[in-house]
């Protein structure tokens, strides 16, 4: 699978930006959850208490893993988690757009809450992950 082999770059993210991300993490997480809650595509999930709880839990764990991945430069660990999460959510009838939307919401929230730092490098890594998710879903549909 081409998409799996594509490298994801976390190397350009500066240490002070990771520190700032850590400081703003709770705000970023709240904004991500809020954005997912108000996404029309996920109306069914939001209406189902168990799946709504899972969605929030996934966002929280993703944020922890993203932070550790940036700090320790371990993209493979985050990719492994996303691969696991995709399988987990697929079996719970989450739409395939959930993970790309989670990544997109994280990009937006990172920009919003890291206004005094360079959030572009983090956003770029998230964009690459989003692209990977998109390629994987195209492959799955083909």
């Amino acid at each position, binding site marked *: 699978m081409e998409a799996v082999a594509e490298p994801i770059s976390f190397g350009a993210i500066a240490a002070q930006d990771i520190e700032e991300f850590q400081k703003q993490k709770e705000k970023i997480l709240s904004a991500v959850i809020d954005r997912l809650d108000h996404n029309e595509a996920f109306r069914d999930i939001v209406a189902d208490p168990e799946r709504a709880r899972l969605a929030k839990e996934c966002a929280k764990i993703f944020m922890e893993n993203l*932070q*550790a*991945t940036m700090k*320790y*430069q*371990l993209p493979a660990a985050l990719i492994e988690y996303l691969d*696991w999460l995709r*399988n987990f959510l697929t079996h719970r009838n989450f739409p395939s757009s959930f993970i790309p939307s989670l990544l997109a919401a994280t990009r937006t929230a990172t920009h919003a809450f890291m206004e005094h730092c360079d959030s572009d490098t983090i956003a770029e890594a998230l964009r690459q992950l989003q692209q990977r998710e998109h390629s994987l879903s195209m492959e799955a549909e083909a």
Partner: protein
Amino acid sequence: MTRNDQLSMFTEPLLAGDRRRCFALVEEWEQQQLPDELLYNDILIPALAQVGTGWEENSQSIVSEHIATQIVKQILAYKAFRGKPAARNGKKALIGCVPNEYHDVASTILANILEREGWEVFHYGNSVPTHDILQSASALQPDLVCFTMKSVGSMEVTEHLLRDLRALLPSTRVMIGGLHMPGLRAVLAPFVDKFADSFGDGADFARSIAAQPSRVA
């Protein structure tokens, strides 16, 4: 009967939460002299992995998964209770999970194995705060500390724990199990003496420490 047959025989009642049937099977295999290592490696762990896959794929509820885990933990407690440890080797091991890690079956198995080999084992199970692990390690002065860890999410707290542990007890050996990703291992490598790939691998490392003379306190 092959080991796969035994695994299927055990997994079925485990998935159904049938404690008595699981216990009876273990008792039966014990009477047939099934070595503990084979029970752990070829039956209990693969059976739990199947239960975990069932949960991931939504064919098993989280409650079923916890019931299965409890059954396995009770079997491990039975094995610990019934085990006939070798004569004490004068070595102490502190065993448990890193902070924020709650999967403690593997550390329980390792505790059983080391105890049977003559180690004095202190097994605290799943996540406890870093400060408390350090305090206990300082009081116990173990020859070996064994942690289990699975997730990248625990990296930061684990790195701090291991750094502090190394500074506090420089001659205590540190082993980590459950961490398979080379990148994660590379981050922790300066503070770790051994990354165990299996229970056998971990037991071999412990034996190499047991073969060394005891430290002067």
